[in-house]
Every structure is written in structure tokens, then in C-alpha cells.
């Protein structure tokens, strides 16, 4: 308590004596101060409006991308046809023939018509000596599909075909009965269809269907001659960026005594009336190139990372000094394939990217000097990019990605185009190599 009083004594004396001494008077008149205050208020209002505008833009972009992806999924769903894939060491004709016969014989009226056509083509292909083993098996698919979905009666003779056995099993026929039927039909086969049909005692229609759907082949969902998309693969892309608004972009700034840019173009004039030097920036179109690595999680979903170098040049008048900065950024994003048309793939992606300045130089008369590369803060950006890729073959494709990026504001960042225009539209064009 005593110590507090003593402390208060010396600090009170200091406060009274030094606090009452006012050596200088303000230089600026209040009218000029008022002008500055009003300009700052206008700038603040504009900034808030800009933030609201940016939020709106971001929301609109995100909503558009979501709508695009949703529309793509709804309009171009994979034409998934349930398939029973029969793997057999037996000659193709031996496997396909009983399947086709049973399909024609067992299904009723409308179902039989649909199945019959497929069965005929299946039999025809099976009869061909060059037909692959997979082809007739796939052609039996609509038969089982029709039976499963229409709830047709169980097969009259379960011993006649595997498709019938599938139907029997899915219609709650005793498992032992189905197993017997399959054993009779394929005494020496180890077939997925048989496994699917017989299954474990607990297997039901749902599990059989999921097994059937699990054996889908993406090739069936594409037009003839299209490039087959391969799952769970890596792909490497090399791209360059074309700035949508290439050329020069201008802005006027006022620089305070400590070298800090204090206002923007729109409201700069009022600030400049206080004597701060006015400079005029020119931003050159950024040049960018990079490499990316993509990994497919599923048929649609993929993750992508990449290394991107961006070269930013700013000049200032009247001194004519230049500032050149080279940023290296590591992007990380996810994307979704929306649709495929022939050899074209349509996709959309979103990414985030921190970029670090790795090299830079600035003229001595450049207003905002950079003391060192280490002092330049990391530039964070995020963006969305719908893209289209043309596949020349299974290994090579070219792509174009119109990209809308947002560069997060940082007051300590050097004067660059991205600081001036946080929202920036570019077009990435590149080549993508698929790795098996």
C-alpha cells in the first residue's frame, strides 16, 4: 500500500509537470483537418461497401459453382446399368448361350421384350470367335436388372441360368436352394455372379443390388470412341496463365511521410491537398506458370496441388521506377468432374494458395521500399475455376480453366496489381499428362 502511494507520488508529479507543458501548436488548421476527416469517412464507407460487394461476389461465385456442379450432376448422370460380370475359364459361347436362353425363356411380356433384344445381341456377340469374355456377360445385365427392379416371379427352373439364380436369390429364395442351383449350373466356376447370387445366409436383395452396381464399368456411360476415364490415378499438369485484363492498370496514390500509402484513387485528391506527394502506379499484366498434380479419389472427386510462379511488375510515375516481384505459391484444392462429352471433360474446382515472394527488386525512387524479401508478407489467395479438358488419348489432354481469384488484403504487402484488384480473372491453359 505504501509502495503504491510512493509510486503515485512520483508519477503524479511527472503527470502534473510534464503533462501541462505544451511546447508546440498544431500546424494544420481545423478546416483542413475537417476536410481530411470527411475524406476518411468517405473512404471508410467505400471500404465497407467494397467488403459487402466482395462478400456478395464471393457468395455469387460459390453459388454459381455449386449450381453448375449440381446442374451437371443432374443433367449428365452416369448411365449406370447394373451389371453381372461373369468371369469364367469356359469358352465364351458356353457361358453366354445358357444366359441368353434363360433370359428369353423366363421373363414375361414387356420385360421379356427388353431382355430378349439384349439377349439376342449377347448371343450374337458370344457366337463371334473374337468376342471377349466380358462382352456377353455385360449384355446379360438388363435381364437381371429388369427382374430385380420389376420384382418378377422367381425363376421356374433355377438350374437354367445364373441370371435366374440371381433373381431367385433376390426374391428371398432359400440360400441353399440358390446355391444348389448355381452349383448345378456352374459346377466348376468361381464366379462373382454366383457369389452374388448365393451370397451369405444374411444376404438380401439390397446387398445383391449393391454388389451388382459395384461392378459398373464407366465405359458404358460414354459414347463410342470416347476416351475411357481411369480411376485412382495421378495426373500432372503444366499450365500458363493469360491475364484477362492484360495490359496496364492504373491507380493514383498519396504517400505519407513515412512512405505508407494512405488513400485510394477515388478519394485521394482530398488527402493530397495536405501536401502528401501524389504518385501514379502502373501495373503490368502478371505472368504466371506452374505445375500441378492431381489425384482422383473417385470417378468425380479429385484433389489437386501445385507449384505456381507469378511475376508481378509495377512502375510508378513520375519517377519511372520499377518494382519486380516473383512469387512462388503452393496451391491446394478440390474439384469435381461435372460431365463428359466424347473426348471432352467438364469440371469445376476451388483452391487456396499461399504465395511467398522469392525474388524482388525495386528502384531506389520507388515510393514504398522493400527492406528485404523476408519482410514481404505471404500473399494468400483463393479462387474457383470451372475447366474444360480435351483428351487426345488416355495419357494426354489439354485444358483451359477460366479462373476467378481473390487475393486477401494485406496492408503490409508491396504495391502490386493484386493489392489493387483483389478480384482478378485469368485464363489458365495447360497440358495434362495422366499417369497410370
Amino acid at each position: 500500500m505504501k509502495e503504491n502511494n510512493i509510486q503515485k507520488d512520483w508519477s503524479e508529479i511527472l503527470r502534473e509537470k510534464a503533462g501541462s507543458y505544451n511546447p508546440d501548436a498544431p500546424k494544420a488548421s481545423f478546416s483542413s483537418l475537417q476536410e481530411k476527416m470527411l475524406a476518411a469517412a468517405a473512404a471508410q464507407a467505400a471500404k465497407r461497401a467494397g467488403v459487402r460487394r466482395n462478400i456478395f461476389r464471393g457468395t455469387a461465385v460459390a453459388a454459381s459453382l455449386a449450381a453448375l456442379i449440381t446442374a451437371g450432376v443432374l443433367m449428365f448422370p452416369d448411365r449406370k446399368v447394373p451389371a453381372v460380370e461373369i468371369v469364367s475359364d469356359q469358352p465364351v459361347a458356353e457361358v453366354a448361350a445358357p444366359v441368353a436362353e434363360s433370359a428369353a425363356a423366363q421373363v414375361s411380356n414387356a420385360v421379356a421384350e427388353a431382355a430378349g433384344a439384349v439377349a439376342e445381341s449377347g448371343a450374337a456377340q458370344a457366337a463371334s470367335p473374337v468376342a471377349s469374355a466380358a462382352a456377353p456377360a455385360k449384355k446379360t445385365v438388363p435381364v437381371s436388372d429388369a427382374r430385380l427392379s420389376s420384382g418378377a416371379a422367381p425363376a421356374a427352373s433355377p438350374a437354367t441360368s445364373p441370371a435366374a439364380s440371381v433373381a431367385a436369390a433376390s426374391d428371398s429364395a432359400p440360400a441353399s436352394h440358390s446355391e444348389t442351383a448355381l452349383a448345378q449350373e456352374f459346377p466348376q466356376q468361381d464366379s462373382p455372379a454366383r457369389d452374388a447370387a448365393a451370397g451369405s445366409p444374411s444376404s438380401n436383395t439390397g446387398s445383391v443390388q449393391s454388389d451388382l452396381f459395384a461392378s459398373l464399368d464407366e465405359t458404358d456411360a460414354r459414347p463410342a470412341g470416347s476416351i475411357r476415364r481411369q480411376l485412382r490415378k495421378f495426373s500432372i499438369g503444366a499450365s500458363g496463365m493469360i491475364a484477362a485484363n492484360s495490359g496496364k492498370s492504373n491507380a493514383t496514390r498519396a504517400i505519407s511521410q513515412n512512405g505508407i500509402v494512405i488513400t485510394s484513387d477515388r478519394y485521394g485528391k482530398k488527402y493530397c491537398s495536405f501536401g502528401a506527394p501524389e504518385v501514379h502506379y502502373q501495373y503490368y499484366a502478371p505472368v504466371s506458370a506452374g505445375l500441378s498434380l492431381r489425384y482422383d479419389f473417385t470417378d468425380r472427386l479429385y484433389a489437386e496441388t501445385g507449384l505456381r510462379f507469378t511475376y508481378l511488375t509495377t512502375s510508378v510515375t513520375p519517377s519511372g521506377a520499377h518494382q519486380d516481384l516473383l512469387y512462388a505459391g503452393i496451391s491446394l484444392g478440390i474439384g469435381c468432374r461435372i460431365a463428359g462429352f466424347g473426348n471432352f471433360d467438364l469440371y469445376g474446382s476451388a483452391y487456396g494458395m499461399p504465395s511467398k515472394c522469392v525474388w524482388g527488386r525495386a528502384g531506389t525512387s520507388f515510393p514504398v521500399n522493400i527492406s528485404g524479401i523476408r519482410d514481404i508478407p505471404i500473399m494468400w489467395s483463393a479462387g474457383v475455376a470451372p475447366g474444360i479438358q480435351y483428351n487426345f488419348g488416355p495419357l494426354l489432354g489439354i485444358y483451359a480453366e477460366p479462373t476467378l481469384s481473390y487475393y486477401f488484403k494485406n496492408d503490409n504487402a508491396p504495391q502490386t496489381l493484386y493489392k489493387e484488384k483483389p478480384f482478378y480473372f485469368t485464363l489458365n491453359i495447360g497440358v495434362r499428362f495422366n499417369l497410370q
Partner: protein
Amino acid sequence: MDQIKVLEKAYKNDGAYLLSVCRRYVRDADAAQDMFQDGFVSAYLNFDKFHDRGPGSLKAWLSRIMANTCLMYLRKKDPVRNAEEIHSVSFKATSDEALAGGMSRVKDEDLYNMILDLPEKERTVLNLFVFEGYSHREIAAAMGISEGTSAMRLYRAKARLAEMIEKYERE
């Protein structure tokens, strides 16, 4: 417009005092003038946060705004603010009573200039502690340093002032 009138009145009545507040933090006279103007702009933009609690409250509020404006300037000017100083200088222990006695014998102007002669970091802590009434915890939060560093800087500021006063009295 009422805000403008209120601030204009404060400018006329307390302008010199508020400028001296800036000057205590930012020793350079021109930079202090800039801080004074920026402080008034900041006051205008944040005037809705001012609560009138009677005479002197606006002056105290503006004084704090000036101090905060100067602090922001100092932080931008010296971003490496968390570095601890090396204790290479030793000070003679001086009691608070002796310091208070010495201060009372020094002219106001000279005491003011002694504060300006203190190293920037110590001067800032002293200003915040004595004139703004900040606790060490508040100073630590405002300057981005630890409470211990704040206390150490205040101790060193006091010791330097004691030395200056001793030298002043000898001369």
C-alpha cells in the same frame, strides 16, 4: 455535423495539449503533427464510441486516441517489438522518494524534454503507465510484449530519469 463542432471546440481548447501527447510518444515534431491529424481523423470515425461523462471526458478520450494512434505508428515503424532487450546497461538504484523529490525541483519544460530523451520503448511504457494510467497488463497487450518486459522498461525509464535529474542538478 455536431461531431465536427465538438471536435472543433476540442481542437481549439486542447489542440496544443493533444499535440504534446503525440510528441511525448513520437519525438519527431513533424511525425507528431501527422499523428495529431490522424488522431483527429480516428476520433471523427469512431465518435459513436465516445460517451460523454462530464467535463474533461472528451479531452481524456482524445488523449487516449492520440496515444493509440502513436502506438500504431510505432508498431508499424518497428515491427520487431517482441524482442527482449539485452541488459547491457546497469543503473544506479534510486528510491521513488528521491525520484519524486528530484522531479519536483526540475522545470516543467526540462522534465518534458527529459522524457523525450528517453529511448523510444522505455518512453512509450512510461507514457502509457503515467499519463494514460495503463496497468502493466494493459501495456503488455497494447505493445505486444510481456508484463515483465513492461515492468522492466518502466524501471529503466525511471532509472534513466533519475540519472538525468541528478546530472541536471549537478549542472
